[in-house]
Structure formats: structure tokens, C-alpha cells
């Protein structure tokens, strides 16, 4: 089931950043200097952006002296001092609400929410305030704020540490929602986010922090939002994913390749703005699309992708677009989470079903 079109890129095995083969948004030609984990790329990018623009500051719970519970902000306090790297009282609404004022006062805040699930404590500031201030003030008070938060399952965290809230976040007009899957994108998208004049929720893959490693371009490197990335091409089925599910999808595609099933993987990189053209291309290439996401399915972002597909590429469909996702239950406890989070097997089964084959 492979054909000439299928062109999987050679990249080190187990490495999530098969960067080439990009019909859309080809990676810039910056010299690749270093293999990094995603968390290292984030840490280096924060340092670089703070170096570049002294208005950039980092605030959150445990971001300063301890360097963040995942060490994403490690070393920043020493480099930039306690005015610009701030351990906040334990109050998420205060972290985001103060960021509004900081932004209005000329700073570029990069608040961290320790785990995305705790953004619920600040939803009135995020959805009701940060997302609307430019609009409400008709441009007078823009909100150049990048809210960083890890999310995603598979690492046996307690409640509310793993929840995937992209569906809820993308339904909030006025926020850009970005979710890198590779170390290079972690850098390129984070630089872009911090320099973006509008609020960006920057979703970091908890399981990918140290679980995903890859080459990261040196120097100034930005990835524009709304430019999806072809991780690999394939002619039978296309998987659309973002964040850590890109890695899972890539593994499933490699494994299916051994059965002569040619699967493409499209990494959306940003959900808002969405690269509609790439999504349409994904449908046109194979007519069969599988969406892989961790969230509970109802009104999750996968649903939006299906709606977007039916709107823009309905007549290219050869089968109903399908989704593999979490289930309609709260994110479960550790002993059940491997059944909840889509894994390679469930994605493979989803691909086979799309081809009307028995899993």
C-alpha cells in the first residue's frame, strides 16, 4: 500500500522531529547545532527572549528559585534577577490577572500555569479578560501575554495535572492556542508567541518535556502560527495531530508502513490560528483522515477539525473523518490512564478501520 508519493523522511529512530518533507512551511535553513529535549528548548528560548527584550518577564508558581517544577525556567533567576523572574503567591487568577496589568503597563509577561488544569482557577481572567482586552478597548490595550502550561497524560500525575483543554480554549475567541510537538517547534513557536502582540496559550507536552528530543536550529528562529508541519507523508490515510500525539501518530505510521500501509502525519502546531489549507491538503491527499487527540471527545478540537473538513473538503472525503481520543469521563487515575490516552495501538486500529480493514 505504499506508493511513490509516500516519502518518509530519514531521521534518527525514536526522534519526534522528522523535520524535512514539509510541503507546508519548510523549516528555515538555520544551521542545526544541538539536539535538545523540549524542556531544554523552552528553557533556552525563554532565556534568549528575555535577553533580547528586557520587557519580557516570567512569573508563576515556583518558577524562580527552584527553576520550575519541570526546570523549564531553570537558571533564569540567576541570569535576569528577581524583578523579571518572579515566584508568585499560589493563585492562578492573580498570576493571569496581574499579567493583564503588567501588559497594560508596558511589560511582556510570560506567566506559567503549573499545570493546565489549574487554568480553571483563572478562567475568568483568561477567557473574560486577557482574551478580550484588545477588543474591548478597540486596540488601546493589547495583551502581549504568553501563558505557558504543561498538559497531557501518560505520566501518572494526580488529578487535573493531565487534562487536555484545547477544545475549551479554542472556543474562546481572542486567544491563540499553540501546541508544539518537537523541540525545534518548541523554540520556534515560543519565540513567535512571546513576540506576538496578542495573547497566546502555549501548551507544552508534559510527556514530551524529556520524552521528545531533536535538533533545534541555532540563533533567532521562529515558526509562524497557522503553518502546519508534515511530519511524514502517506497516501492511504492522513493522521492529524498536535502536541505529544504527533509522536504517537508517527510511531503508528512507521509501524503500519511495515504492513505496506502508507500513513501521513500532519502536525498542526497551532490550533488557533488553524492552517486550514494544510487540513484541506491532508484530506485531498488521501481522502481518509484520522484525528488523534487526548481530550474527552465532545466538542473537543477534533470535532472542530471534522467540521472544518466538511466545510472545506467534503467532496474529497473517501470515508467519514474519524477521531481517536480520550473518553467521555474525567481524566482517570494512573492505573487507568493508559486506556484513556490514545496509544499507538488505538491509532493503528483507527487507521485500519478507515481503510475498512479489521484491526
Amino acid at each position, binding site marked *: 500500500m505504499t506508493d511513490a508519493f509516500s516519502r518518509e523522511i530519514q531521521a534518527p529512530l525514536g526522534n519526534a522531529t522528522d523535520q524535512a518533507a514539509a510541503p507546508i512551511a519548510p523549516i528555515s535553513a538555520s544551521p542545526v547545532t544541538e539536539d535538545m529535549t523540549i524542556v531544554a528548548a523552552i528553557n533556552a528560548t525563554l532565556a534568549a527572549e528575555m535577553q533580547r527584550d528586557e520587557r519580557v518577564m516570567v512569573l508563576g508558581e515556583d518558577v524562580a528559585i527552584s527553576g520550575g517544577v519541570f526546570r523549564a525556567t531553570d537558571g533564569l533567576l540567576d541570569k535576569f534577577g528577581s524583578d523579571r523572574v518572579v515566584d508568585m503567591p499560589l493563585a492562578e487568577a492573580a498570576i493571569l490577572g496581574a499579567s493583564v496589568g503588567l501588559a497594560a503597563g508596558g511589560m511582556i509577561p510570560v506567566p506559567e500555569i503549573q499545570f493546565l488544569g489549574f487554568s480553571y482557577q483563572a478562567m475568568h481572567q483568561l477567557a473574560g479578560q486577557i482574551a478580550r482586552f484588545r477588543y474591548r*478597548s478597540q486596540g*488601546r490595550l493589547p495583551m502581549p501575554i504568553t501563558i505557558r502550561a504543561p498538559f497531557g497524560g501518560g505520566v501518572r500525575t494526580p488529578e487535573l495535572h493531565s487534562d487536555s483543554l484545547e477544545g475549551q480554549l479554542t472556543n474562546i475567541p481572542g486567544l491563540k492556542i499553540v501546541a508544539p510537538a518537537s523541540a525545534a517547534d518548541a523554540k520556534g513557536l515560543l519565540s513567535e508567541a512571546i513576540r506576538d502582540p496578542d495573547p497566546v496559550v502555549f501548551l507544552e507536552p508534559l510527556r514530551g518535556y524529556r520524552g521528545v528530543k531533536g535538533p533545534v536550529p541555532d540563533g533567532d528562529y521562529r515558526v509562524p502560527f497557522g503553518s502546519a508541519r508534515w511530519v511524514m507523508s502517506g497516501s492511504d490515510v492522513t493522521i492529524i495531530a498536535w502536541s505529544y500525539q504527533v509522536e504517537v501518530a508517527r510511531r503508528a505510521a512507521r509501524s503500519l508502513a511495515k504492513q505496506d500501509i502508507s500513513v501521513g502525519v500532519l502536525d498542526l502546531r497551532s490550533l488557533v490560528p488553524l492552517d486550514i489549507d494544510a487540513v484541506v491538503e491532508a484530506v485531498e491527499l488521501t481522502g481518509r483522515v484520522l484525528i488523534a487527540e487526548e481530550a474527552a471527545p465532545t466538542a473537543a478540537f477534533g470535532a472542530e477539525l471534522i467540521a472544518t473538513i466538511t466545510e472545506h473538503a467534503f467532496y474529497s472525503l473517501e470515508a467519514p473523518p474519524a477521531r481517536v481520543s480520550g473518553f467521555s469521563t474525567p481524566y482517570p487515575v494512573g492505573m487507568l490512564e493508559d486506556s484513556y490516552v490514545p496509544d499507538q495501538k488505538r491509532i493503528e486500529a483507527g487507521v485500519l478501520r478507515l481503510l475498512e480493514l479489521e484491526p
Partner: protein
Amino acid sequence: MVSTLSNEDLLAMHCEMIKARTASDRLWSLQRQGRIGTIAPIDGQEATTVGAAQALDPLTDWVLPQYREPLALGRYGPEVLNRFVAWAIGHPDGGHIPEPIRVFPPQISLATQILHAVGLAWAMKLRNERGVVLVFFGDGSSSEGDFYEAGNLAGVLKVPVIFVCANNQWAISTPTTKQTAAASFAAKADAFGIPGVTVDGMDPVAMHEVVQAARDRALDGRGATLIEAVSYRLGAHTTADDPTRYIPAAELEEARQRDPIVMFGRQLEDRGLWNSELEHDAHASAEQAIDAAWAFATNLPLRQSDLFDHVFAQPTQRQRLERASLEAHLGSTS
């Protein structure tokens, strides 16, 4: 009446209070005529806002209002009232208070602005800008978590912010006794390690004094102050509200005796600073101000597809598609 205020200041404050009341009354009757939407009158709280604003320097100090105060922020220029009227009629430009006016648009999501004020004061401190941030919020709003998180954060950061709790005794129909069992709203400052003071919010001179002291303290690097300005809501919550359902008539009547404009007018008269001629002029210029604001607001241009402006600096592809579809639709049906 002991204070640093000059006679001119005193007169300016009185005129400003009259202007606020006049504008509030006008909007009320425009609403009653069905020409604008819901309006929250300011009756009873003029002195709280005007006295506080008098202690600020509009060139350096920010004001973050809740939704009543913009009626009484003439000290920051007539544009504040213009924009407020535009806001009241539902025009998008109503939220745009132009540079360099240091006033935020009205806040509807109660208490959220208190955290914004702390962040803004923090930015000023970080950038070594001389100035303070003053934020207004109601007695009801003080029950929201955001108020406490803001007070606590300001205490920790020692930022130049002044919290003014405009205690008008009511949050819609809810009296302060159901809002808190604390000895006073000012007592909540203990939770933040900042000073808390209670002041007569119906006396503009007293207001000016405590805000001036809080401002001096803030500029001195000694951090935040919580001021409880005690007044009484003499009007309805909004045009949609019927306060006779819950306000005891006698209590309201008693409060009306303390109407800040009447009281302050008398004090000025006693000191020979006020007379019926000045009163007449003040009312005439107040009418002019609201006339001008109404003219400003109702003459603002509007296109329905403007609804897509200013979501982001640059629209997304999706927004462009939506805008095109709306324009086509409006074109085809108009």
C-alpha cells in the same frame, strides 16, 4: 474641612459632582425613553469618585473604574464621559479611551480589575515610573476571590496601588450584612498586611485626604492602601432594577438627607464659596458636557463588519473568511 485643597479645588470638585449627577440623570431618562440600554446611576457616590480623582495626577496616575465611576472622572478630561456614553449606547468605540488618558474602560466582570490594577502598579514599579494606580470596586465585589488575591499580592509586592472599596451598602439587592461579617471592609486589609482606612465616601474633602495620604505612601515606596469609602446608593442599582423591593424606605430617606451634592453645596455656601449664580452656571455647564458626550457618541460611525476589528492585531484566515461572508450577507440582504 481641613485639607490642602484650594478654594478652586473645592469648587472644581463640586462642579464635577454636579456634572456626574447630571450626566447620570440624563442617561437614566434616555434609557427610560428607550434610546439606550441598561445604565447604572451614580447617585450618592459622586463624592467618592470625585474626591479620589482630585488627589491623583492625571499625567502619572491610572484609574481603573468599575462601571459607575466613569461618570465622575471629568478630572481626566471630557473624553472619559464621551466614551462612557458611547459605551452605554453599545458602540464599540466606547471601550476605547484614547492615549494618553490613564483610565481603563468600565469593568463588568466584577473584581477582575483589582488584579489588573496590581499588575499595572507592578509594571510602574519595575519601570521606575512615578505614579500610582487607583482602582474602584464595590462592597459586593469585595467578596470575589480576585479582590483578596489582589490585596494579598499587592502586600507581597509592595506596589503603588490604592484600593477604593466604594461601599454603597448594596450589591444589587444584597446588603453588606450578607456580604461579610468582617468589622468593616477596611478591616480586610489585615489579611494583606497593608493599612486599611474607613472614610466618609459622601464627603469629597475627606476622600481627597485619605487618597492623598495613600498616594504619598505609595509614591514613597511603602506600598498599597485599602480605603473603604462609605456612602449610600441613592438610586436604583440600574435602570433594570426596582429597589423598592428590598430597600427599607426609611433607611433610604435617611440616606437621602446626606446627599453628597446637597451637603457639600451647603458647606461651600457656609464658607461663602457658593451661591445660586454659581449653581446655575454649574448646572448649565454640566448639561453642556452631557450634551456634548451624547453628540459625540451618537455621531460615531459604525459598520457592522467592524465587529471583526481588534480581536487580534492581524485577523486570522478564519476571521477573514467570516468577515467576507458577513459582508456578503449584509450586502445581499440590505
